[in-house]
C-alpha cells in the first residue's frame, strides 16, 4: 500500500507536490528537486505537461521511487492509445509505482509540438475504468493478466469550473469509474472551493486542493492566458502588484489557501513550479496538524 493511500485512509491531512520531468536526460536536477521534497507525502510527476515534450514520467517516477520519494504518476490520454496506456501502466507497476493521477490531458495546441496528432483514444473516465480492470487482473479486452498490478488511482477535479452542475457531473462520473482520490486544479476562490466540497463530501472520496505558488502579477497574466483551467482572479493579481516583495506575497497567499483547505479538504497539492524550497514556509503559514 502506498504511503499516500495509507495516510488518506487514516484521515491525515496530506501534502503532495509536483515536479516536471526534464527536457533531456540529466538526473541531477530531478534528484535535487526530490531531495527538496522530502517532507511531503507524495510527489506528482507530470506527463508532457501543457503538451510540452519531456522525458517519460514513468521513468522519472521510477527514479523518484528508487530515491525514496513516493511518486504519483500522471498519465494522460493525449499521447497514447489504449494499448500504449495499458502497457505503460503495467510497466509502471513493474517499477514499483502505485499512485496514479489519470487525466485527459491538455490539447497539443498549447505545447511545443502543435502539429502532432492528438490521440484521445480514451478519456479520463475510460482510463479510470481500465485501471480498475487491471487491478482486478484483466486488460481492457477482457484478457487475463499473468499477474495483476496494484494501483491507487486518482483523478483531477475543477472546483471552480462553471457551469457547476456540468463540472460536478463529470466529477461524480470519475468517482463511479473508480477514482480513489482527487487532486484539484489550482484554486483561488475559497467560497467556490467550499461550495464544491459541500457537494463532494457525501461521495466520500478524499480531495486534495490544488494550491499554486504565484511569483508575480506577470506570471498570473501568463497563466491566465496560457494554462487551461487556471484563472487567477483580479484581486490576487492586484495583491501581487502592490506587494513590496511579490514572491513573499505569493507564499503568503498560498499559505492562506492551505489554511482554508485544512477546514474542508483532506489535503493539499502544492504546485510550486521549481520553488520547492518554499514549501515549508507555505505550510508554516497555516497551523500545522500533522
Amino acid at each position, binding site marked *: 500500500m502506498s504511503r499516500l493511500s495509507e495516510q488518506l485512509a487514516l484521515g491525515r491531512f496530506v501534502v503532495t507536490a509536483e515536479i516536471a520531468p526534464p527536457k533531456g536526460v540529466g538526473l541531477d536536477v530531478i534528484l535535487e528537486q526530490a531531495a527538496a521534497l522530502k517532507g511531503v507525502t507524495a510527489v506528482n510527476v507530470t506527463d508532457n505537461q501543457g503538451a510540452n515534450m519531456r522525458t517519460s514520467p514513468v521513468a522519472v517516477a521510477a527514479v523518484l521511487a528508487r530515491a525514496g520519494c513516493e511518486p504519483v504518476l500522471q498519465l494522460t490520454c493525449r499521447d497514447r492509445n489504449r494499448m500504449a496506456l495499458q502497457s505503460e501502466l503495467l510497466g509502471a507497476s513493474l517499477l514499483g509505482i502505485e499512485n496514479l493521477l489519470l487525466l485527459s490531458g491538455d490539447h497539443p495546441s498549447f505545447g511545443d509540438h502543435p502539429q502532432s496528432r*492528438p490521440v*484521445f483514444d480514451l478519456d479520463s473516465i475510460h482510463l479510470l475504468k481500465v485501471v480498475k480492470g487491471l487491478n482486478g487482473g484483466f486488460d481492457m479486452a477482457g484478457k487475463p493478466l499473468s499477474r495483476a498490478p496494484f494501483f491507487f488511482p486518482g483523478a483531477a477535479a475543477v472546483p471552480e469550473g462553471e457551469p457547476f452542475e456540468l463540472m460536478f457531473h463529470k466529477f461524480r462520473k470519475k468517482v463511479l469509474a473508480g477514482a480513489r482520490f482527487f487532486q484539484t486544479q489550482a484554486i483561488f476562490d475559497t467560497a467556490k472551493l467550499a461550495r464544491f466540497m459541500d457537494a463532494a463530501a457525501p461521495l466520500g472520496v478524499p480531495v486534495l486542493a490544488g494550491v499554486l505558488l504565484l511569483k508575480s502579477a506577470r506570471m498570473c497574466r501568463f497563466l491566465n492566458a496560457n494554462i487551461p483551467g487556471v484563472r487567477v482572479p483580479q484581486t490576487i493579481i492586484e495583491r501581487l502588484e502592490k506587494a513590496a516583495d511579490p514572491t513573499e506575497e505569493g507564499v503568503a497567499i498560498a499559505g492562506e489557501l492551505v489554511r482554508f483547505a485544512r477546514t474542508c479538504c483532506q489535503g493539499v497539492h502544492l504546485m510550486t513550479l521549481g520553488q520547492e524550497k518554499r514549501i515549508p514556509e507555505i505550510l508554516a503559514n497555516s497551523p500545522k496538524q500533522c
Partner: protein
Amino acid sequence: MIVSKQKNREEMAALLEGLDSLFLVGCSACATVCKSGGEEEVFRMEEWLTTLGKRVTGSVIIDSPCNVNRTARDLRDHRVQVEEADAVMVLACGAGVHSVVLKSGRRVIGALDTLFLGNTLRNGQFAEKCSLCGTCLLNETGGICPVTLCAKGLLNGPCGGMEDGKCEVDRELDCAWHLIYENLKKQGRQDIFTRTVPAKDWRKKQPPGELKVK
C-alpha cells in the same frame, strides 16, 4: 458536402514541373460550392497554367467526379484531349481524384486539399459538425457531436479546461459539452448524462470504408 480548397500556387507550380500540357477536370457539385473546382475556378486555372507556359488540351466539369461511372463516361467523351495531355489535373476532392486515376489511366495531379464533411452556414462559409466516426451518438446528445466539436473528442463530459462553458483550445468557441448540456436541459432531457459512454470502437472508422446497400 465535402469541403475542399485549392493548394497554394507555389505548391502547385512545383507539382507541374516538367509537364507541358494538361487536361483539367472540375466538379459541378461540392467543389463548385466551395469555389475550389467549379467552372469559374477551372477557367482561372487554365489562365494561370497558360501564364506558366503550359498548354491546356481541354477541360470538363463532371457532375460529381466521386461517381466512378460518370467520371469514366465523361473522360471517354474527351478521350483525345485526355490522351494528348502529359497529365490530368483534377479540381475535386480526393475521391474525385481517385475516380480519375482509376478511369483515365493517366498521371493525375490533384489541385485541391480535401478538408472535411461540412455544413454550409452561408455562401462560402462551412463548418464541420460530423467527422464520420461510424458509431453515431447524436440521438443522445441533443444532436451535437462531441466527437467532432470537442477538441479532444471526449465522450463523458467536459475536460478541466472548460471555462464558463467555453473551450480551452479556443475561448471564442463553445465547449461541445456545454452545448450538449444546454440543449438537453432546454428539452428537459438527461440522455447521455445518465450513462458512462464506453470507449469507441474505432474499427468502424478505420479507412478504407466500404458499404454495399442491397
